[in-house]
């Protein structure tokens, strides 16, 4: 089931939280929604889940118009809101039963679904505890379990891994990936590594507008700036001589020492593959030893900064 957003706008007072954005998420795709705080990620997600009414624009879930028939659409969506709100005074299992019933899971299937979710989300040992007694990581799992309980075709996850430790983050990511194969997933985050690791496609939003949309590789290709190479050379000459030799190569824009001593350099080049060969040839010619030659991909962080800092 696809999600189609057309010309969505949402105003808070006179400020445009979301400014005329359009995008499509296809079935089986995990879309990573990136952006600085206050960029409009959460507002967009709230509009998709029908919680907020947009000022203009259309949202289609499959073929159903989310604004005209919210009750139909809500059945298809599993939603983990920002900050993972939960009824903290309820026991995990009671809470999941409650959400299952609200989602219209058939009475005789509720226990089966709850048990399945408890297993999938690793809540077996905690199911009888009150939610407020759980650690943040487990609470997050409860939040995910409630979003998945009715086996929705669409999952909207607003910052699903905030407050988790690295092991938990990896577990939740794996879980999302596994589930995401058969569903349509939108997840927001401001952790870039997470989006890159989990998502098929990345959409960067800034000040309510989409500024980039594509796979991580595509985003890298489009970004400006030079390629970076790290080279470490050993030989019987001083580091300054290495420096000058490297700086004189064609395509090389800038050379930097990476440390105070040692012969490690950071080289900015306008043509990655030519420079790699040049450095190798240079070393062969002078009988130096090339100890390391590492091309550095443009980091997603840099693309993100470039697109969202004006």
């Amino acid at each position, binding site marked *: 089931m696809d999600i189609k957003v057309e010309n969505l706008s949402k105003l808070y007072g006179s400020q445009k939280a979301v400014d005329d954005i359009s995008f499509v998420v296809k079935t089986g795709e995990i879309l990573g929604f990136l952006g600085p705080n206050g960029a409009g990620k959460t507002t967009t997600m709230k509009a998709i889940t029908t919680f907020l*009414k947009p000022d203009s624009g259309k949202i289609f879930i499959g073929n159903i118009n989310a604004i005209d028939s919210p009750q139909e659409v809500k059945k298809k969506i599993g939603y983990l809101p920002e900050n993972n709100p939960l009824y903290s005074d*309820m026991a995990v299992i009671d809470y999941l039963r*409650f*959400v299952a019933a*609200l989602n*219209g899971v058939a009475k005789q299937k509720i226990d089966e679904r709850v048990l399945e979710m408890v297993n999938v989300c690793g809540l077996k040992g905690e199911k009888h505890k009150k939610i407020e007694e759980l650690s943040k990581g487990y609470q997050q799992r409860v939040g995910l379990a409630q979003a998945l309980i009715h086996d929705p075709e669409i999952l909207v996850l607003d910052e699903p891994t905030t407050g988790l430790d690295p092991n938990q983050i990896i577990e939740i990511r794996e879980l999302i990936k596994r589930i995401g194969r058969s569903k349509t997933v939108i997840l927001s985050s401001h952790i870039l590594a997470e989006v890159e690791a989990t998502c098929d496609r990345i959409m960067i939003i800034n000040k309510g507008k989409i500024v980039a949309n594509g796979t991580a590789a595509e985003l890298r290709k489009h970004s400006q700036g030079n390629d970076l190479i790290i080279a470490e050379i050993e030989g019987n000459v001083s580091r300054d001589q290495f420096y000058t030799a490297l700086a004189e190569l064609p395509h090389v824009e800038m050379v930097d020492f990476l440390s105070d001593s040692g012969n490690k350099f950071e080289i900015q080049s306008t043509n990655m593959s030519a420079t790699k060969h040049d450095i190798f040839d240079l070393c062969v010619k002078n009988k130096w030893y090339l100890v390391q030659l590492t091309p550095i991909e443009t980091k997603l962080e840099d693309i993100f900064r470039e697109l969202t800092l004006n």
Partner: protein
Amino acid sequence: MDKAWIIARRELASFFDSLMAYILLILFLGFSGLFTWILGSDVFFINQASLQAFFSVAYWSLFFFIPALTMRLLAEENKSGTIELLLTRPISDWQVINGKFMGTLLLIIIALAFTIPYYITVANIGNIDHGSVISGYLGLILMSAAYISIGLFASSISNNQIVGFLLSLSIGILFHIIFGVLAGSFNGWLSHVFNYLSLSNHFESMARGVIDTRDIIYFLSIIFIGLISTEAVLKRKRM
């Protein structure tokens, strides 16, 4: 209706989980028991087999207890953000409000059910007017329902429970006392209007055993207006 019932059950369970229900039951039964049997113009003092004493105590104690029950109903959900979870499930705003209303009313009905032994005891001592007891209980239930719907509305406005409590108590005081007082200090049609608005008038006639459709319509209108306004507030918050 089915979905609203799910909400109602959760609310009722949460009253019992948070001890709120037990505190209400103990205080309510303590007060009403004390004033019905032991203190003031109790059953033995007025020397009549009637539950008038109980009805007037219940009338006042419920007036104070209900805002304490309703204050968290929506304020807490607004504050913690769980309202977002609730309203993005396949359930309408109206069902959510209705469920919360029914859950609270159910707790009041449970509290009232515990006072049925009073009725049985009094009926055994003397000749009790069964009709007036039934209409009195009906009056208490309708009055509670009216205050619950006012309380829900008050709770929906802010995410602060204390604001919810004070606001519902202030609106309640209008119906409980002030309209009655105003009715006495005006003449003509204005007096009639305030007289009709005063909740105590309607309740007292029911406690005496008179079931008039005008009274029933009065209570039902307050309930309906309260719930509709709550729905409007919820809608507005999502604009």
